[in-house]
């Protein structure tokens, strides 16, 4: 239990994918304008991250490694994720249209979100077990959600004042500066994992 918590807290607060590890920056910049879409996107990401981890971990551990083919990791993983996302989209559209309406528009964006491929690869780099990997996937997704939700508020403030921002900084640049401030604030949590679970 404790080890799972360690992974979870670490993934959400300390090694936040967006603010500390630089994964999934594109949606972070692109979809954080409104709280609703930030939330929707994040939920979709959590979902796909967990699903992708659940599929890729066994394939890597039980097929690629025994055959000495771990170098195929990249190609196999991305293929699986791409197919998975597309499949999930089709399936949701057909069977759970309500959910598709909420998350559907974000799904195609996810294939090219480094956070998803990143989490599957990093899980293996860290040598996590299947359970740990799943927890890490969900935790990273939650970290992504936290960053997105927090940032959507900041964005609303920043965008509302966009008129008084210098021309050259309007749009993406000022958003990045805001991200810098958010990311520096998260540094305060460094060491929290050791501190909490001493």
């Amino acid at each position, binding site marked *: 239990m404790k080890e799972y918590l360690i992974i979870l807290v670490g993934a959400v607060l300390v090694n936040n994918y967006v603010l500390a590890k630089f994964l999934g920056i594109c949606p972070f910049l692109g979809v954080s304008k409104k709280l609703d879409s930030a939330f929707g996107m994040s939920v979709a990401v959590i979902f796909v991250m967990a699903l992708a981890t659940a599929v890729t971990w066994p394939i890597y551990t039980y097929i690629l490694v025994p*055959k000495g*083919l771990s170098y*195929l990791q990249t190609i*196999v993983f991305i*293929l699986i994720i791409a*197919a998975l996302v597309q499949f999930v989209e*089709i*399936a949701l*559209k*057909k069977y759970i249209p309500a959910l598709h309406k909420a998350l559907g528009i974000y799904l195609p964006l996810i294939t090219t979100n480094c956070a998803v491929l990143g989490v599957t690869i990093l899980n293996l780099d860290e040598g996590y077990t299947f359970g740990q990997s799943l927890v890490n996937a969900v935790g990273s997704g939650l970290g992504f959600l936290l960053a997105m939700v927090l940032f959507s508020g900041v964005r609303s403030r920043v965008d509302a004042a966009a008129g008084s921002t210098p021309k050259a900084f309007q749009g993406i640049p000022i958003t990045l500066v805001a991200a810098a401030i958010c990311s520096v604030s998260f540094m305060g949590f460094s060491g929290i994992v050791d501190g909490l679970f001493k």
Partner: protein
Amino acid sequence: MGVGSMLFPVIIVGGIGLLSSIILVVAAKVMALPADELFDKVRAELPGANCGACGYAGCDDYAKAVAHDGAKTNLCVPGGDAVGHKLSEAMGVAFEDVEEQYAVVRCSGNCYATDSIMDYEGKQSCAACNFFYQGKGSCSHGCLGYGDCIAACQYGAISIVDGIAVIDKAVCVGCGMCAKACPNHLITVIPATSTVYVGCSSHDKGAFTRKVCKNGCIGCKKCEKTCENGAVTVTDNLASIDPRKCTSCGACVTACPTGAIVTCASRCEAIVGE
């Protein structure tokens, strides 16, 4: 070496590729929903200005109407003929000309023609100034010159020249956003072919108008009498020109004693002449 080292990779990656493509193809088949391809096609052709000139709530709405409700394909004003053609093509219907339009400001009360009655120090916007005595000008119908219309125009067609708004016909696409923004409803969208229009909106009595503005329409009816095509009528102290009858001959322009009837060329010159 060789075959051996290639066998497993090929089997595994090929297998996953095969499997996933089969699943996708089957899934697409089994779970297929009618895609709204027509909508996508139509929407892709629209300029995306979401100006509402078509009469629908934005481009998506218009695309939907074209794709499913048989709306006309020539309603997108900013897109002009080009978009009209493409939409017709996408829908497989005959193309009708888009009526090209542009916006004109029906006020000629620039700073040489009329005065300001008060020293307005409040918020610098037409809508705000209009709250006080219907604006700072001695003519309460006139252009306030704070440029609410400029802010509304996505195309940068409007500028303030000598205290009144002037629209550059060459830049204006006729979306009508400015007309909605003007608190005095001075801006109207007219067909591109009509180059003569009345540059005044005052229904005040002629005597009063003459007092407050040199360029205002005083309702003298000279234009009505001059026009051979019967395009000009004066109602309620204000002339109006029916663009369908007007041949842009310019007779009324010369006849007007105050210069309230103008040509768009003279207006556009004002912009360049500045």
